[in-house]
């Protein structure tokens, strides 16, 4: 039987061969009828001038008279791509194309991959801000930490459309959704549990902050990085204050017991362990899982190889185990969040996104599992009705929070999102059926 390592290698090989064949994953296609060249008098000059005039008088009309309402920029500098590290913008493109594909297929969104050669923080921020008039929302992707925190914060503050960093916010949202159901499985309450987060990069810093916003107790949390458990008296705190203020803030408010040492000490007595650190099976030792409280919850999220194989974690006593992979139960997968979250904010023409919106999305995703079980705490990607439902919840939440440019009922948003996603999928299916998009061989 094919093992986990062999299966990973096979995917690598197929991905390379198919990329050579298809030469990119997305393309632009007209969406308006062109039956003769005369039609360009409407779609282009002279008619288009009137559309421009109207938008000049009211720039919000750009959401109604152009494709801006459904356009998302996927922006990266390629400094932290998957588990590969700083591969540069060109090498980031295949990943961003893949993301664009998921945006479109699951959310009916036109997402444009934009890897930038702008490695400096200020240059990157200025470039993204300059792109604001063209897009309804921005998805930042695969940017190294702590730069990603500054960039996200600066752009969220200064832009009038939602800015999302999926490695932080998408991972945090689906993790929260999974945890809500995992807690139901083990019969524990969020305000009572002890949470250990291994790795203090973009994902875990965002997860910790979202969990606190959702009612988990900051003092019951332990964040661990390469220097050990975060705590205010650690020698590197001043440096952290300057270089990574979000992580510094967490060091100030977590770890009420002032635990020191490393992962082992942090896992002892934990109810939940969330690891987003080293892609190496065995990085988390079975013995450490044994030291957790009864009915432990372990999320080993490193890709492609989790920090502990699910079987090992369960053998060591964990009740619920989740990973980032689709070939194990409980995949903590951002794709369960970002297509519908963006569908929602785009449909509401939202000006921003925040933790309250994310919590609403996470709770909606969690509700899709009516009776959670140890091996079933999050929906799977083929639960198609989830996408428009979460989108409607998100859109309506932005209305409630005063972030929406467009005010409608939740029912209206549900119908709207369903229609957009279905229509997009029908177009794609017909291209596939007619052979205009060739099927993968083998």
């Amino acid at each position, binding site marked *: 039987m094919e093992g986990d390592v062999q299966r990973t290698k096979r995917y690598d090989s197929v991905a390379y061969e198919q990329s050579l064949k298809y030469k990119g994953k997305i393309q632009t296609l007209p969406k308006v009828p062109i039956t003769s060249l005369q039609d360009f008098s409407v779609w282009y000059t002279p008619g288009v001038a009137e559309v421009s005039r109207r938008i000049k008088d009211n720039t919000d009309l750009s959401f109604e008279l152009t494709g801006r309402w459904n356009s998302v920029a996927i922006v990266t500098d390629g400094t932290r791509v998957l588990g590969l590290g700083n591969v540069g913008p060109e090498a980031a493109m295949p990943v961003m194309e893949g993301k664009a594909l998921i945006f479109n297929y699951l959310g009916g969104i036109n997402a444009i991959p934009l890897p930038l050669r702008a490695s400096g923080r200020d240059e990157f921020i200025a470039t993204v801000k300059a792109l604001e008039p063209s897009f309804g929302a921005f998805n930042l992707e695969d940017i190294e930490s702590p730069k990603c925190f500054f960039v996200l914060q600066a752009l969220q503050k200064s832009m009038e459309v939602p800015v999302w960093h999926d490695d932080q916010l998408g991972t945090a949202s689906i993790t929260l959704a999974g945890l809500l159901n995992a807690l139901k499985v083990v019969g524990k309450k969020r305000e009572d549990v002890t949470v250990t987060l291994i790795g203090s990069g973009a994902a875990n810093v965002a997860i910790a902050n979202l969990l606190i916003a959702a009612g988990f107790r900051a003092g019951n949390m332990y964040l661990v990085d390469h220097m050990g458990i975060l705590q*205010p*008296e650690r*020698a590197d*705190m*001043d*440096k952290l*204050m*300057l270089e990574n203020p979000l992580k*510094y803030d967490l*060091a*100030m408010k977590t770890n009420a017991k002032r635990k020191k040492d490393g992962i082992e000490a942090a896992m002892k007595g934990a109810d939940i362990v969330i690891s987003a650190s080293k892609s190496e099976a065995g990085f988390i030792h079975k013995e450490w899982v044994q030291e957790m409280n009864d009915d432990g919850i372990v999320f080993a999220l490193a890709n492609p190889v989790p920090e502990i194989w699910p079987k090992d974690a369960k053998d060591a006593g964990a009740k619920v185990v989740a990973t980032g992979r689709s070939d194990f139960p409980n995949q903590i997968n951002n794709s369960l969040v970002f297509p519908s979250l963006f569908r929602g904010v785009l449909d509401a023409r939202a000006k921003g996104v925040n933790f309250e919106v994310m919590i609403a999305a996470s709770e909606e995703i969690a509700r899709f599992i009516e009776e959670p079980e140890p091996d079933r705490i999050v929906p799977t990607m083929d639960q198609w009705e989830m996408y428009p439902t979460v989108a409607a919840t998100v859109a309506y939440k932005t209305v409630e929070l005063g972030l929406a440019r467009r005010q409608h009922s939740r029912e209206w948003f549900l119908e709207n999102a369903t229609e957009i996603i279905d229509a997009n999928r029908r177009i794609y299916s017909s291209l596939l059926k007619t052979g205009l998009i060739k099927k993968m061989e083998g």
Partner: protein
Amino acid sequence: MEPKYIIRRAEEKDSTEIAKMAVRLKKLNEEFDTQFRVDESAVERGTEIAKGMISNSNNIVLIAEKAGKPIGFILAELRTRIFYLPKKEARITEFYIMPEFRRTNLGLSLLNEMKKEIKKLGISLLSAEFPTLNTIALKFYKKFLFREIISVYGTEISEAE
């Protein structure tokens, strides 16, 4: 209720703890400019250096503590200004607060206590020096109505010069 901190004059017995905080301050300064590279041999002699700071009659050293645990300190050097008026100046050259006690107004309390101490000595000018790129310190002092009164510029002289 949690006990509030107290601020008092530092004594010789505080040398070790003052030294620890001073080293943290110097390591922080190291982040701002290569001209603040910390000399590890001085770190090793930290307690001795702190003892000297505390016993120096030209220094005022105040320490803040909570439940007996030091949480911050401030040091001002008393200087004579030969050509200028006022004749005396107190210059804050060391100021550190442990991370978890920041944003609690402890900084302001230490500053106010220092003002009281120098007032007792008839000194009316309080100044502060810190690395130019330490914008956190800059913001802090500006907030409490300090303004720039002198600039210090530096250059490294190369071997060829």
